């Protein structure tokens, strides 16, 4: 197995672990962490392609993904603080009455 194939297989496994975390964990903060694992898997596949093709496109795409993730985390953490203050909990089971 080449390094490229190993890295893509690793990215697939990391993506599946992150997806599993999003589906099974009840704590909203851990769900956000699982989303980060999924994003890391995507970045890993871009970097593997960049290193394999020896072009800058994959590395540049990683940079833009980092920018998007930073925005996402800043907003997600603000919303989590809002939820903690309003409901006193980050348990997703508490948020059953969301309507859309």
């Amino acid at each position, binding site marked *: 197995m080449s390094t490229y194939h190993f890295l893509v297989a690793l990215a697939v496994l990391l993506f599946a*672990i992150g997806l599993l975390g999003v589906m*099974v964990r009840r704590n909203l903060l851990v769900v956000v962490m699982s989303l980060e694992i999924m994003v890391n898997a995507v970045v890993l596949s871009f970097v593997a392609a960049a290193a*394999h093709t020896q072009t800058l496109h994959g590395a540049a795409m990683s940079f833009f993904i980092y920018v998007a993730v930073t925005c996402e985390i800043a*907003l997600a953490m603000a919303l989590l603080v809002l939820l903690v*203050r309003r409901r006193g909990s*980050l348990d997703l089971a508490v948020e059953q009455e969301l309507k859309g």
Partner: protein
Amino acid sequence: MTQAFVVFFGVLALGFAGLVLLLRQPMRAALALVAHMISLAAIYATLGVHVVALFQVLIYVGAVMVFMVYTIMLLDDRDASFKQPFSRLTLPAVVVAVALAVSLLGLLGGGPVEPPVPTAAAPADFGFMAFSLAFMKQYWFHFELATVLLLAGIVAAWTAIRESQDAA
């Protein structure tokens, strides 16, 4: 030697990602996530993509995880999600995740997915200065758009914080 390092750090990254999923306390999960990200940065550095390794450590481990740790400090350790961390739908979720992983790995191993063919005439330099120069020549417009996205993120986060202050 490079392949051995990549495999070693890959196994570490996979193990720490699993710990994020399994650990009950969010602070321990956050520390496992930090270790996972550092393992990935080590893979990037081993591959010679130093600029992404640097972004990974500075932006992810340095900035994003600090946000998370601050938020964890606001949590009550008697939260119900600490005592019962997993959903009731764990079994179907495991089936879905395993099916996704098996199907994608099957595509990878079955032959239809070929690695991209190296297209560059000369190997790219992933050092910080060479990357910065090439980045500002080829991607300056995208970079400007990214700054608008960052501004929108800051305004949205500020609005949410104002809302939480009004609620308190």
